[in-house]
């Protein structure tokens, strides 16, 4: 049997593809693209939240947020290392990010203006990421799937701590209620865009679904998220900022108004409110960490020399 046929057969039988298996170049490259973008999103995703750690309103909130941000660093590390199984090095991926050549989730190019935004990120952004990542547990590439299993276990805490913040504010004094509604107004549409362009205009979806890299389309995932999160919003007394929103009794689904895809493409092109700032912060962090990396290397080198001398 030809390698191509064997590969196809594995996909059809829902067998996972493992690093040393033969795979089409295009499958490999699409996965490198998708997984490295995913890893970058975890890393850049730490920034909007990280800048609220020192301003968290209580020690309980601070501990939770700190642990969440640390988890996101871990997620970045799992996915980088599992992407390396495809033949690209982590350094290459990090260089691509720092040079501004790589993409990451658009959502992190929006600013976190108030404490309520931290609640929104956990409840909405991590909630949306979870819908996507739960689907990716079933992806056909073994190492990606394994990273997703680990990540999904941790995301639940992220979403819940965010939901708790939102619910607390929604239940608070009028100023807090206003603050949390304002945050929802700003985060709602960008969160819906996280699932990517509509199926009618998504260049990669078909191919990725044929290879079972993705198991659901962008629109399907978006609908899953909408149906789950809208009742939660209503239950907390929040108003979804969409005048066209209706519940379709027949289908049992919520139907939303038009998404502003121009905004989506603008942010992808680098014209979002925070694109420049996020990359600058990453570059600075990378530079200020240089002496730590050099010290660790010097120490490792010295230890090795000593060992050689002793033996």
């Amino acid at each position: 049997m030809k390698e191509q046929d064997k590969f196809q057969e594995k996909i059809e039988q829902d067998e996972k593809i493992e690093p040393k298996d033969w795979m089409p170049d295009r499958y490999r490259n699409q996965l490198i693209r998708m997984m490295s973008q995913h890893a970058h999103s975890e890393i850049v995703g730490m920034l909007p939240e990280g800048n609220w750690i020192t301003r968290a309103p209580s020690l309980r909130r601070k501990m939770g947020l700190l642990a969440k941000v640390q988890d996101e660093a871990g997620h970045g590390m799992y996915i980088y290392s599992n992407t390396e199984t495809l033949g690209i090095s982590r350094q290459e991926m990090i260089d691509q990010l720092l040079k501004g050549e790589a993409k990451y989730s658009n959502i992190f190019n929006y600013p976190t203006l108030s404490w309520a935004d931290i609640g929104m990120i956990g409840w909405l952004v991590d909630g949306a990421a979870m819908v996507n990542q739960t689907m990716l547990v079933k992806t056909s590439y073994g190492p990606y799937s394994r990273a997703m299993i680990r990540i999904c276990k941790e995301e639940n805490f992220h979403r819940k701590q965010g939901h708790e913040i939102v619910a607390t504010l929604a239940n608070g004094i009028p100023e807090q209620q206003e603050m949390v509604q304002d945050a929802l107004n700003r985060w709602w549409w960008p969160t819906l865009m996280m699932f990517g362009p509509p199926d009618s205009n998504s260049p990669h979806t078909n191919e990725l679904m044929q290879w079972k890299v993705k198991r659901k389309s962008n629109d399907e995932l978006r609908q899953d998220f909408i149906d789950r999160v809208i009742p939660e919003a209503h239950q907390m007394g929040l108003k979804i900022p969409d005048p066209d929103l209706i519940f379709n009794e027949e289908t049992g689904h919520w139907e939303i108004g038009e998404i502003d895809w121009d905004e989506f493409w603008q942010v992808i092109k680098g014209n979002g409110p925070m694109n420049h700032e996020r990359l600058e912060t990453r570059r600075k962090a990378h530079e200020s960490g240089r002496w730590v990396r050099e010290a660790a290397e010097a120490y490792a080198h010295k230890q090795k020399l000593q060992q050689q001398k002793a033996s």
Partner: protein
Amino acid sequence: MSEEEHSTNDQWPLWEVFTQKKRGAPHQHAGSVHAPDPEMALQNARDVYARRSEAVNIWVVPSSEITASNPSDKESFFDPADDKIYRHPQFYEVPRAAKKRTSSGS
């Protein structure tokens, strides 16, 4: 290592991480980390793969030291095991009564 080599900022070696969930359980592959030496590989592995008591013990092994079988040889490499059904208990038949006695209590 010269000054120049220090500043190239090359990637640190890769280590495969194996974690043991609880005492008595086998070590299982968890993922990998980059680190300049074994000590830091262990610390990185703890921070990346055991933030929620997922491990009571960790092994780190330089990835370059691992030899793996080749998936394309899967058939020829493993087929000695495929035709030896007599290695399984289902291959053998025993009298019924004896069977009952050994499985009593179930």
